[in-house]
């Protein structure tokens, strides 16, 4: 017959390594068949239950130390439980003469003043508090802990941004700063590729592959999985992009995320355009606008992102004229697929963008007769076709709409297609050019862009159509892809970054860090040759919530 006995110690926090040693010690005792020693978090309880080590009557909180022993007899089980303190003490006596381990972040900072980074892996509900303290001490934060509330994440990241500090996380698994891996990171050579990663394993896969291909990493900055959601607005990713853009050692940037919120993606892609460096983007599950636009290349897999980055000697194109940032684009298409392809390409750059033929529902232009913000209209849509000829034959509708758009003071660019060929209007340029000239007489700043589809054998004479348009000041392209690239550059927000820059010197200094939480992260820093101090962290007021709440109130008074 087997006996299961347990012991719950409220508010006793131990590092998992200690608990594992204790568990091994218990297993070595006579008559003990199995033992589990864990902090009683739901996950750990499940683990015990899976091993038949969690009798249903056991109640314990996540902060409690739970010791369960399965033994051959009552006596063996009691004996084992009775040895717990002795086993815990045995470890202590062997560590009496080790270096002092601070208990608070402020003491750790005094011990290692050159530390610019604080790694935090304490239980989630305490993590924000520790992170706040780190920011107050002007340290960058690598926040491995999960279960940090969204409000806390936003507040922490805003506070950090104001001080030019990074909060990587919460739930950030990987970063490589100046050659030293934080959290879970692969050992990769140093090099010229910078990574901004909202996905921990994604960053690992890309950095490892870059290494395999012979490339190297300057810095890989993690952001945490929620950074690219609307609520957070990619605060960390923007800071990281900006830092890598300014970092001389970084020649290429890779940006990786699980599907971002569309508005966030748009802003981030614009920021990536503004870096002036080649940027490889892989937003898993997000439709890329093109393979390559200006300084951006869109990858279709993690490994391909690495490959592009390593072979990134592509030529950079940049808009020569001043960008038209504060105006809107109106695209007036006769060809439905051309409209659709253009929308697909531009949705990554222009936000908000609407269409009567949207790709996703929120892009739907409710009233096709009135554009708003950036708009792509398919004039060949059934809605417009009642009692009318197709716009490839009859330019009347498009001319009227062109005038309507030009009357809108917010419009800065009008895009249209000209589709030549059999059956089409015989001189579309000839009808459109006078209207364009008329518009430009009163509003010279409105730019016209056309994509002309046709061949030199077509009845309309491709060359003459293009020349007529060009003579009227229209920028002409032969493919939607080229037009999209051009437009995205013209609208590219070379907006100045409004936040305090991350101090690059801090990224370039030999990494020194303070570790709060998982001891293995400290061990890994040391084994990589970084300077580090481990904080012997415990929940505030030893888990006494009344006292902890009181102390928190007092903090607001100091």
């Amino acid at each position, binding site marked *: 017959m087997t006996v299961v006995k347990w012991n719950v110690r409220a508010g006793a926090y131990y590092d998992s390594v200690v608990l594992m040693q204790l568990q091994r010690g218990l297993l070595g005792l006579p008559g003990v068949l199995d033992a589990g020693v864990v902090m009683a978090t739901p996950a750990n309880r499940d683990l015990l239950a899976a091993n038949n080590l969690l009798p249903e009557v056991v109640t314990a909180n996540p902060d409690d130390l739970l010791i369960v022993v399965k033994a051959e007899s009552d006596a063996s089980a009691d004996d084992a439980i009775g040895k717990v303190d002795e086993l815990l003490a045995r470890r202590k006596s062997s560590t*009496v*003469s*080790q*270096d*002092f381990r*601070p*208990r*608070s972040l402020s*003491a750790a900072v*005094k*011990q290692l003043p050159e530390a610019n980074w604080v790694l935090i892996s304490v239980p989630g509900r305490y993590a924000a508090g520790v992170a706040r303290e780190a920011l107050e001490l002007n340290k960058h934060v690598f926040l491995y802990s999960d279960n940090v509330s969204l409000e806390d994440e936003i507040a922490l990241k805003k506070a950090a941004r104001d001080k030019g500090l990074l909060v990587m996380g919460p739930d950030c698994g990987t970063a490589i700063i100046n050659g030293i891996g934080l959290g879970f990171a692969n050992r990769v050579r140093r090099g010229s590729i910078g990574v901004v990663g909202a996905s921990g394993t994604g960053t690992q896969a890309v950095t490892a592959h870059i290494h395999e291909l012979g490339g190297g990493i300057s810095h890989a900055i993690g952001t945490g999985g929620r950074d690219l959601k609307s609520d957070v607005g990619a605060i960390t990713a923007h800071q990281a992009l900006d830092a890598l853009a300014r970092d001389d050692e970084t020649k290429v940037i890779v940006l990786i995320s699980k599907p971002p919120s569309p508005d966030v993606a748009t802003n981030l892609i614009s920021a990536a355009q503004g870096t002036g460096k080649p940027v490889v983007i892989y937003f898993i599950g997000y439709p890329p606008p093109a393979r390559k636009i200006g300084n951006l290349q869109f990858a279709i897999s993690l490994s391909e992102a690495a490959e592009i980055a390593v072979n990134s000697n592509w030529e950079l194109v940049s808009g020569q004229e001043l960008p038209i940032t504060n105006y809107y684009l109106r695209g007036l298409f006769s060809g439905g697929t051309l409209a659709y392809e253009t929308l697909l390409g531009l949705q990554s750059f222009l936000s908000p963008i609407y269409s009567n033929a949207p790709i996703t529902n929120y892009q739907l232009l409710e009233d096709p007769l009135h554009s708003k913000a950036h708009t792509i209209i398919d004039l060949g849509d059934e809605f417009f076709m009642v009692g009318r000829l197709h716009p490839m034959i009859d330019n009347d509708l498009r001319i009227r709409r062109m005038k309507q758009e030009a009357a809108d003071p917010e419009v800065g660019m009008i895009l249209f297609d000209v589709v030549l060929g059999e059956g089409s209007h015989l001189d579309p340029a000839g009808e459109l050019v006078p209207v364009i000239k008329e518009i430009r007489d009163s509003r010279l700043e409105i730019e016209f862009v056309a994509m002309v589809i046709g061949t030199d054998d077509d009845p309309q004479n491709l060359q003459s159509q293009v020349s007529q348009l060009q003579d009227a000041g229209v920028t002409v392209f032969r493919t939607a892809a080229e037009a999209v690239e051009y437009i995205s550059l013209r609208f590219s927000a070379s907006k100045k970054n409004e936040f305090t820059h991350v101090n690059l010197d801090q990224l370039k200094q030999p990494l020194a860090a303070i570790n709060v939480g998982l001891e293995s992260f400290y061990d890994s820093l040391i084994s990589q040759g970084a300077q580090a101090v481990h904080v012997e962290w*415990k929940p*505030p*007021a*030893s888990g*006494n919530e009344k*006292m*902890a709440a*009181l*102390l928190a*109130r*007092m903090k607001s*008074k*100091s």
Partner: protein
Amino acid sequence: MNIDEANTTAVNRMMEARPILKAVATARDVIPGMKVNLFLHAGPPIEWARMSGPLKGAIIGAMLFEGVAASEAEATSMVERGEVEFDSCHHHGAVGPMAGVTSASMKVYVVENAEHGNKSFSNLNEGYGKVLRYGAYSDEVLKKLHWMNDVLGVALADALAASNGIDMRALMSEALHMGDEGHNRNKAGSLLYLRLIAPLIAKTMKDNAAMAEVLQFIGDNALSVLNPVMAACKAMTDAAHGVEGSTIVTTMARNGTDFGIRVSGLGERQWFTAPAEIPVGLFFSGFTQDDANPDIGDSAITETAGIGGFAMATAPAIVTFVGGTPKDAMNATLEMYEITFAESKFFTMPSLDFRGTPTGIDLRKVVELGITPRINTGIAHKNAGVGQVGAGLVRPPLGIFEQALLAYAEKYRL
């Protein structure tokens, strides 16, 4: 109210206090509220019934010394009839090691804080062996007390009267550079004291034989300076008391039964107490942990002021108390930085690159981190009169800091 600002004020007052040993005088002449039949004792206030053996013994001894009782039996029955009063030394600006019993006719050191003007007092140190402060009251003990009062005390009084006083802060700073931590080890400080006082005694004392006795007594006793050091610490911590909103601990004291603390921003007589722990340490041969009395004495005023156990890093000679190696001593001091508000401007430690000692225990940090102050201490035998049985380390119960925090929250409506 800003807590950090209040604490800055309190800790600065503590550090900038300038304790000068000015005089030796008779207790009833100098200690406020001192009177015949009043017996001051170490630690928080306590009634007779709850007093431990050493404290009861010391009170009986002091009554015999004062001549108010002729025997132990008479003394005990007087106490039980309520004919004598007890009070905490701390309520009178005084401190005393171990039992700390101080009575009206005893000679006491007078320390004046030249910066803020407050005064503090401490009795004279009796040396080792059978002594009143450990509850002994045999004829031999009383005889020595009388000699101390009539010969030693007078010699010290005359000597100090012929001087401008002794700058205790300077003496303590220097002793910390000579291997003392100022609580359990006062060897260097006592010799410095002897160096300063000897010429003054030679100048004022006529009787050479008596002078030799006096100098021998001071020189033989490596704890001679402990009492003036404690009085100096008391002058410093009293200067830090009463700062509105401050969470700095201004008193830690034990009466052999209870451990008590007071806090700067809380009441003058507002003690937070819990049963004192039994110190853990090394024992003189023939004694064991079982002989130890619960923690006793006002000497934890040294830690309150930032020396003693807090300055372990500078006292490698006594590292065996804290685990055995100089690194352990270093770690002991580093741990105390966790719970203190400042680093001393005047007490520095060569082994830590002359970093200031951890100064000003912050209630908030103690409760937040669950780290209680380390106190180096002598250990008294639990029975009256046996004396010191060892020395070691003790910490106050965490609960009294939590109590104090709750009282703070109540007072300041947090």
